[in-house]
């Protein structure tokens, strides 16, 4: 049934594009590359936009690491580049906090949400479920362009006279609600909120599309339990996004009201710079509930697609089925449910009722169980495999290592007793960078290396890929592992100069070291970017449709699939996607009917 509907959809669209049989051959540049409705092109748009944002966000982190590593030094070049924001070659506090805020916002939302799930949901969902495009290609296109608009607004905020928002990526009021509180709280914060609202629209349009596509447009034989794991991961990600992003939108809008219309949703009892404000009765903590009701699912929105892709890549490159497919599904489901029930663990020290706190401790640590299941299943997947270390496979292994390291420190922070000491210290920074930031980044890199041949019909350069992997994993651990010690010493996060403190100034050498390593890691990311763009045009060409010997449907399409993906009929699916090493055969594609003598699993 689903096959016939999609064919009809495509036919209608072809009729619309100049009544030609193969509309995509005759498309203008604008409809093919800019306002494209082809899910593959939209995916690439998300990816390339994400890469541009990642460079900007990463560069910001290099700037503030310079301040952290060398608080006493002056860098005249910075004054040349940034003028009053780096007076005398030193990063000014307002600038520092703007950099930190933009780094967080860009990386969390623009790179790891839009750049990661926007890219791979778009590219993989129709290709792996056997559909010609998304349920609504038009909404899908709008999803990208709302994201683009959000980016334009955010980029504009960097150039306003009072600078971009500087209230931290969480944008807690009253700081973010009061223009008097600092330069970054002026027009920059309004733009930040508008940008977020646009971003939520983009995310909802995308998410609804992903869900309806997965539920309705699977090819014949592709039952839900035959879906490859990346699709399941994208499905739960989209559900999380659809249910939680509106809550962020409400928080952002209420905050805009408080800032511009004189409401008191989050404001009460405020005296700032000697000025008594009239607001009474609001709750600053309410915003934190609204924010983290998105904010916590958000970390899983970032992590789940990476988990799904890593599962696929580890299985393909171990030449062995994923271990415990149903358990992987179950744990994805459990994580998705629990993701909604743990938000207040970010708020243990806000004065939250201790009993409520204890409930959130229980639920938070519960989430470690499905996480542990996933880790053990990945370990068992590579056990007794026959592993090919493509750059994608290496990044997938790196993901598992980082997910273990960062996940375990989550057990410290999820336990409210320990959180009292570690809350808002560098320990938290180290924890979420490893488990959410770097690990998801590794998932994204794994995905790019693995599906680049599908996207562009060429390979990425392997040697550059290996250099990229090894420097990045070593660098990530060198940066973030020792940072835990700063946190154990209680060094608060977002301190740009610790020399004035008796108890926090013992890490000067360590901060220099971390800064140097982060610059090296940043440079190596540039190597990746060069590799990426060079290989699009000059990379080694694919000679086979299925370069990795994988079972899933995307590798049954032509090397450079047109709009519509398959030239003839959409293939029919007869088995789950992980029949590797079965009955002495290296791999059995999903399209192959089950033989009479085949063993059952």
């Amino acid at each position, binding site marked *: 049934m689903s096959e016939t509907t999609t064919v009809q959809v495509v036919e209608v669209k072809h009729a619309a594009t100049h009544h030609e049989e193969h509309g995509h051959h005759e498309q203008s540049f604008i409809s093919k590359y800019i306002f494209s409705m082809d899910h593959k092109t939209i995916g690439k748009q998300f990816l390339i936009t994400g890469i541009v944002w990642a460079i900007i966000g990463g560069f910001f982190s290099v700037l503030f690491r310079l301040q952290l590593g060398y608080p006493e030094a002056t860098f005249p070049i910075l004054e040349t580049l940034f003028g009053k924001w780096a007076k005398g070659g030193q990063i000014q506090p307002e600038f520092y906090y703007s950099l930190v805020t933009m780094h967080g916002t860009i990386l969390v939302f623009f790179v790891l949400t839009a750049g990661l799930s926007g890219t791979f949901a778009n590219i993989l969902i129709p290709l792996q479920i056997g559909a010609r495009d998304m349920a609504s290609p038009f909404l899908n296109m709008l999803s990208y362009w709302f994201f683009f608009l959000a980016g334009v607004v955010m980029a504009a905020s960097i150039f306003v006279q009072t600078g971009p928002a500087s209230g931290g990526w969480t944008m*807690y009021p009253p700081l973010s609600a*009061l223009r008097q509180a600092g330069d970054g709280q002026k027009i920059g914060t309004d733009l930040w909120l508008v940008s977020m609202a646009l971003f939520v629209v983009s995310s909802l349009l995308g998410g609804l599309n992903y869900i309806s596509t997965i539920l309705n447009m699977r090819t014949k034989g592709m039952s839900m339990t035959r879906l490859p794991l990346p699709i399941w991961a994208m499905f739960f990600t989209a559900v999380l996004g659809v249910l939680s992003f509106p809550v962020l939108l409400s928080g952002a809008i209420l905050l805009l009201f408080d800032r511009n219309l004189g409401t008191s949703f989050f404001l*009460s009892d405020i005296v700032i710079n000697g000025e008594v404000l009239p607001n009474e009765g609001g709750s600053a903590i309410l915003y934190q509930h609204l924010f983290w009701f998105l904010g916590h699912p958000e970390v899983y929105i970032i992590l789940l697609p990476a988990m799904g892709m890593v599962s696929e890549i580890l299985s393909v490159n171990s*030449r062995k089925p994923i271990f415990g497919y149903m358990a992987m599904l179950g744990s994805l489901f459990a994580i998705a449910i629990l993701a909604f029930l743990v938000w207040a663990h970010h708020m243990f*020290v806000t004065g939250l009722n201790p009993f409520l*706190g204890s409930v959130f401790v229980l639920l938070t640590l519960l989430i470690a169980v499905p996480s542990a299941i996933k880790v053990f299943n990945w370990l068992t997947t590579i056990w007794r495999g026959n592993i090919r270390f493509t750059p994608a496979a290496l990044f997938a292994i790196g993901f598992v290592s980082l997910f273990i390291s960062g996940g375990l420190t989550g057990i410290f922070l999820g336990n*409210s007793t320990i959180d009292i*000491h570690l809350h808002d210290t560098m320990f938290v920074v180290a924890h979420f960078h490893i488990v959410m930031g770097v690990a998801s980044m590794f998932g994204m890199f794994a995905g790019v290396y693995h599906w680049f041949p599908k996207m562009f019909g060429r390979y990425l350069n392997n040697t550059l890929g290996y*250099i990229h992997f090894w420097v990045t994993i070593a660098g990530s651990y060198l940066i973030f592992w020792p940072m835990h010690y700063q946190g154990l010493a209680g060094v608060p996060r977002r301190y740009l100069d610790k020399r004035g403190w008796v108890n926090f100034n013992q890490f000067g050498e360590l901060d220099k070291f971390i800064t140097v390593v982060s610059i090296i890691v940043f440079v190596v990311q540039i190597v990746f970017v060069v590799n990426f763009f060079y290989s699009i045009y000059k990379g080694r060409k694919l000679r086979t449709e299925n370069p990795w010997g994988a079972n899933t449907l995307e590798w049954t399409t032509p090397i450079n699939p047109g709009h519509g993906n398959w030239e003839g009929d959409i293939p029919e699916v007869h088995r789950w996607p992980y029949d590797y090493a079965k*009955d002495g055969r290296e791999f059995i594609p999903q399209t192959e009917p089950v033989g009479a003598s085949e063993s059952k699993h």
Partner: protein
Amino acid sequence: MQTLLISAILILFLVVVFQIAKASEYVAMIRGYENARKQSNKINAFLLLAFLVLGLIGVYYCNELLKDRILGEPASDHGVLVDRMLYVTLGITFVVFLVTQIALFWFAYKYQESDNRKAFYYPHNNTLELIWTVIPAIVLSVLVGFGIFYWFKITGPAPKDSMVVEVVGKQYGWEFRYPGADGILGKKYFKKVDAANNNPVGQLWEDPANHDDVYVEQEMHLVVGKPVQLVIGAKDVIHDVGLVHFRMKMDAVPGTPTTMWFTPKFTTKEMKVKTSNPDFVYEISCDQLCGKGHWSMRGIIVVETQEEFDAWLASKKPQYLVANPDKDPPQQKEIASAAPLAGAVIR
């Protein structure tokens, strides 16, 4: 000039890396992709093993280097509980860390691609999956149990004989109010805040409980061995009272008072000896981003004996008298300062 040089070196480095990569591609083309792939597979498998070994050495070395720079003995009774929980968790998670990381990198090395091996078709095993669902669940239940037990101890009601201090955060500093002889913090209202007229926290002068309340800035004094309850608020934006040595932390939220209590174990003087740092002081750090001065929002706590504390407090004039000098006849002042302070209770 220097920047130019560094940029030139960076660009040169990128070009060199890029050329090497391109050359390797040509070499692979000449020798055959399959051979090149197999060779790089061996190299990467070896590197994974090397990474494991070097990484574990690095973990040990990092600990040797930094273990003395994290905080020493906790300086409050709650801190003892926090540290115990922390080290139990550290022990358990470190074992899991070792087992899983070693398994990951060792499996990767051991099961690297080889022409002689066939991958083992092993899609699931219910017993195994049950084991590694149940064991983490049990271990985590233990951690949750202890964690919640300690959490309730720490966040439970303060002892009856606690002294009370009000802490107020503002951009960018700390203010404190002591309840004075009656042990009661007088009422306040934010619209009465008027620093120019000596009413920095907005006390209502018509409340008699306010008449003996003492206001100080930046430096809080506490009594060793005596429980203290902090009543925490903020004037402008959210701040956070971070007390690293006491292992305590609580947000200061405008409009929503919060509290925490603890018992300091050592005086500042004792800590100078314990840390062998003559400059040691207890510091209050703001742990919640509060604006451009967040990183420098520092307060000091002096922990001292009861006698020292009484003498210190007696030297302070109640804010009521500072704000209303006409109400400050000399005799009254002496009576106020001579009143006993011990046994102040919260009502």
